[in-house]
């Protein structure tokens, strides 16, 4: 994690909803199509990439989100060191995936901001600004979707009952977080 001036500085609490940024969390985008790519990832990380749409998989240290038939996001479940931006997982994948021409690995740690939402009113908030139908999504633990929230591209990971991780691009994060606070105050 580089030393950015963080735009989301405080934890916000409303009735039935808490929101704060979790940082620094390693985030990688990996892309590849071949069967060998999937098995190489599985062997390197001890984590099977989800192949069915809108799902995720989880190991002790990492979570993998399905984004597209040939694109996944991997992020660490625990926060990493704030003093450097070198990650073991990235080095391992660079060695086993990029150097063998199986696919691409991109570090998006500083590109995406991870907003963690907790409480029973998460989906009430999301429904106020998204065209996505959350009816089945909210019941499915591990479900993932890319959609629009207040006209901003987001990735939503239904991590647990009443716990959602929301990824947004850094340049949009301040605006989105202020919109979320505004919207949450009216729930």
């Amino acid at each position, binding site marked *: 994690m580089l030393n950015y001036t963080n735009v989301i500085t405080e934890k916000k609490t409303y009735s039935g909803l808490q929101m704060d940024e979790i940082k620094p969390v390693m985030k990688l985008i990996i892309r590849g199509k071949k069967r060998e790519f999937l098995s190489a990832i599985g062997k390197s990380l001890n984590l099977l990439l989800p192949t069915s749409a809108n799902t995720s998989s989880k190991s002790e240290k990492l979570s993998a989100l399905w984004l597209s038939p040939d694109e996944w996001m991997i992020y660490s479940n625990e926060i990493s060191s704030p003093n450097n931006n070198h990650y073991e997982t990235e080095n391992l994948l660079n060695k086993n995936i990029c150097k063998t021409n199986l696919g691409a690995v991109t570090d998006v740690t500083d590109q995406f901001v991870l907003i963690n939402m907790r409480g029973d009113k998460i989906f009430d908030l999301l429904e106020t600004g998204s065209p996505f139908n959350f009816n089945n999504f909210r019941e499915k633990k591990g479900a993932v979707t*890319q959609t*629009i929230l207040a006209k901003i591209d987001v990735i939503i990971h239904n991590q647990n009952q009443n716990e959602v991780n929301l990824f947004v691009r850094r340049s949009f994060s301040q605006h989105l977080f202020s919109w979320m606070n505004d919207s949450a105050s009216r729930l």
Partner: protein
Amino acid sequence: MFLIDCPYCGEREQSEFKAGGEAHIVRPKQPTELSDDEWAEYLFMRKNIKGIQFERWIHIHGCRKWFNVARDTSNDVIKVVYKMGEKPPTI
């Protein structure tokens, strides 16, 4: 507003997508040998019919994949959704 069944992600709202114009227009193999009229025909002229039209769409705010759609332009009813590279179905 209408729903589009993305072949990769499932049913989503139209605002997540972007239209890419008429589908199945083949680029001429030797553009330098065409007359200006033929080139203009390829480049600009589109059918724009009232009825079933084959179109390209991209799920731009989702999986970012292109696919084809057969849409009735008079009432926005989508008849078929099929992947890129597949032949247009007969409707």
